């Protein structure tokens, strides 16, 4: 079986590019968190930032939370990606099952693929992360923000990102390959190919999702309450937020389709639009799966942006009550935190984009015959293009809207937990929602839709009407 796995990696490495990118990004994040702590420790040793115990504590806590979030997101996107890879491979899996391979054994082989891809991504990400940290330290030192101090960037701790990448990728690959177990050998006989599509829609666990959502929300609320006394409430709030978000992802099959329907109604009634809309709603689980990656990305972006905006607003209150010199130093630190946030936001967007391009490509790939039929019935290339683009837009805009709402809630909760214990702020406050953020997210969603639909569109318009007649 190991030979089969290795051959799969050697012959068709392209199928794991998305996973490799995501695990690399995750390792970069983990590395940067570790390096941030290293650098801050060495800066403290030479006398920088030592007076601001609260801000440092906050940054360490934020770092841990970022790591948690990064691992969580990587898991979801990688599991999703492996689900897609398995769907594309289902015919071959069915053949192996027919010839006597146990589903469990095949799944172990897939998990091994995850281990290998994760290891490569982990090492790559660590190297990249150290490189980025080096560059940042150099820039910040030359700009005078940092004091010149020897920063030991290589520490034994740097094994952690690779270990984390391997563990998350293997685990997510195992979870994402659960479809392998449901592929019947009968599918190899040419029967039940349609059923395999129906299978793809299953795996919905709305009740479990609702349960996670409810329990997670309660824990999150508890964390916010603790946050009124100490920012350590983040250690309660973060898992709560994660759990509730996991619940949302599990329940997305039932939560997202109504949003998709609403957004779909915005695009009018022409034939290709109607086809795109009908398609999104005919396979609600597939559409939800495509959109959920984006929801994750936008939620993160929004969460960080809203948290940062709240931080910015509330920092004014802190500054007002602090000595001027301390306030100036605080402001520098806030700028640093916002800079780090900006970098992290870029990463989460990249993760989301990878997920979306992947999903759309699959959606077109699986509908080759249907697109061929439509072409045979007289849909021209331009209309095919519109159809794919509208489907893409519907997904990105629905994902964007849902992500905005969730992100505002999570970002507000994070800011409340982290800041409300500070005596200068004194209690709860309303969220600061940057209007520019909403505009940028929706515009970016539209741009992403166009970019993500480029490759699938090329594939879709290349489908000849003859495809509809092929027996295969």
């Amino acid at each position, binding site marked *: *079986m190991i030979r089969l796995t290795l051959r*799969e990696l050697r012959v068709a490495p392209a199928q794991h590019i998305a996973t490799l990118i995501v695990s690399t990004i995750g390792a970069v994040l983990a590395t940067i968190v570790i390096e941030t702590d290293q650098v801050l420790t060495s800066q403290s040793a030479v006398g920088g930032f030592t007076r601001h115990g609260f801000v440092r504590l906050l940054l360490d806590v934020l770092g841990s939370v970022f790591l948690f979030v990064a691992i969580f997101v990587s898991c979801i996107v990688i599991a999703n990606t492996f689900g897609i890879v398995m769907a594309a491979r289902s015919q071959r899996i069915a053949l192996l*099952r*027919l010839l*006597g391979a146990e589903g469990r054994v095949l799944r172990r082989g897939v998990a091994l693929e995850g281990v290998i891809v994760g290891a490569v991504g982990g090492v790559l990400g660590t190297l990249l992360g150290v490189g980025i940290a080096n560059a940042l330290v150099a820039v910040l030192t030359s700009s005078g923000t940092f004091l010149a101090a020897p920063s030991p960037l290589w520490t034994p701790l740097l094994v952690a990102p690779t270990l984390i990448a391997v563990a998350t990728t293997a685990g997510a690959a195992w979870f994402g390959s659960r479809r392998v177990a449901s592929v019947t050998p009968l599918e190899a*006989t040419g029967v039940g190919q349609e059923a395999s599509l129906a299978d793809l829609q299953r795996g919905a666990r709305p009740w479990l999702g609702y349960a996670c959502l409810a329990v997670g929300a309660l824990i999150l609320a508890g964390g916010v309450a603790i946050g009124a006394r100490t920012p350590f409430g983040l250690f309660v709030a973060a898992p709560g937020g994660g759990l509730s978000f996991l619940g949302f992802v599990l329940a997305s099959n039932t939560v997202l389709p109504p949003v998709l329907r609403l957004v779909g109604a915005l695009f009018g009634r022409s034939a290709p639009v109607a086809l795109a809309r009908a398609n999104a709603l005919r396979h609600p689980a597939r559409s939800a799966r495509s959109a959920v990656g984006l929801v994750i990305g936008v939620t993160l972006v929004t969460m960080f942006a809203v948290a940062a905006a709240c931080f910015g607003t509330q920092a004014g209150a802190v500054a007002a009550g602090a000595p001027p010199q301390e306030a100036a130093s605080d402001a520098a630190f806030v700028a640093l935190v916002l800079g780090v946030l900006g970098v992290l936001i870029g990463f989460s967007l990249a993760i989301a984009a990878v997920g979306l391009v992947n999903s759309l490509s699959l959606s077109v790939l699986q509908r080759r015959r249907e697109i061929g039929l439509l072409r045979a019935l007289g849909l021209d290339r331009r209309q095919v293009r519109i159809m794919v683009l509208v489907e893409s837009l519907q997904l990105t805009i629905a994902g964007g809207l849902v992500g905005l709402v969730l992100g505002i809630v999570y970002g507000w909760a994070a800011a409340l937990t982290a800041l409300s214990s500070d005596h200068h702020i004194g209690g709860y406050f309303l969220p600061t929602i940057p209007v520019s953020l909403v505009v940028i997210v929706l515009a970016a969603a539209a741009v992403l839709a166009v970019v993500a639909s480029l490759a699938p569109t090329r594939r879709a318009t290349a489908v000849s009407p003859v495809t509809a007649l092929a027996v295969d």
Partner: protein
Amino acid sequence: MSDDTAAVRARNLRKVYGTGGTEVAALREVDLDIEAGRLTAIMGPSGSGKSTLMHLLAGLDRPTSGAVWYDDVDITGLDDRRLTALRRTDIGFVFQAFNLVPTLTVLENILLPFELGGTRPDAGRLRWIDERIAELGLTALLRRRPHQLSGGQQQRVAIARALGIRPRMIFADEPTGNLDSRTGQEVLSMLEAATREHHQAVVLVTHDPAAAAHADRVLFISDGAIVHDVGRTGASTLSEMVLDLAGHR
């Protein structure tokens, strides 16, 4: 295994799809013995239940009621794990779509069932496989990949893979469906030879009378029941029987 022992016996085999008002009986109360050393063809129009019968005999699908006996084991009661092991050791498949793994060479495809079971074929088995490879004219092609082969060659690889495990049964589902008629005849002759020379039980599912004419026994399925059970019969007679059946439906 002696001549009078059936390789597989089916008793009261019934398969119903759907429930309540939408019930469709794909197979009704079929009794059938498949003998070793004979090529048995199952014929019938689309939707007659011939594919369903094959899937049940091969343990790919579960009957609504009835039993399929491999010796004294009723395979309809086996769990997925034991069915998987059964497919690996007792059943060979040859299908219309050639069903080779595209990333593996010819030899690797032939040895795949062993790899999937985590076993190594012993020396005796390797010799047996070598002989089948030679017999099927694949010796020069062992290092090629499926896409470098013609349709007929691919189908011969599938036959070699099926024979390699020395299965109790080989199921061939429209094995000539994607081949031109001359290549198709060649593949059928090879299945026929394997049946005779290695005392193999082979079930050939087809709607092509020319293919069924290679069989030692031809079963006609119509509306989920066996309506004719005849010995070796010429293609033209089989064609008439098919047309006759269509007229009576």
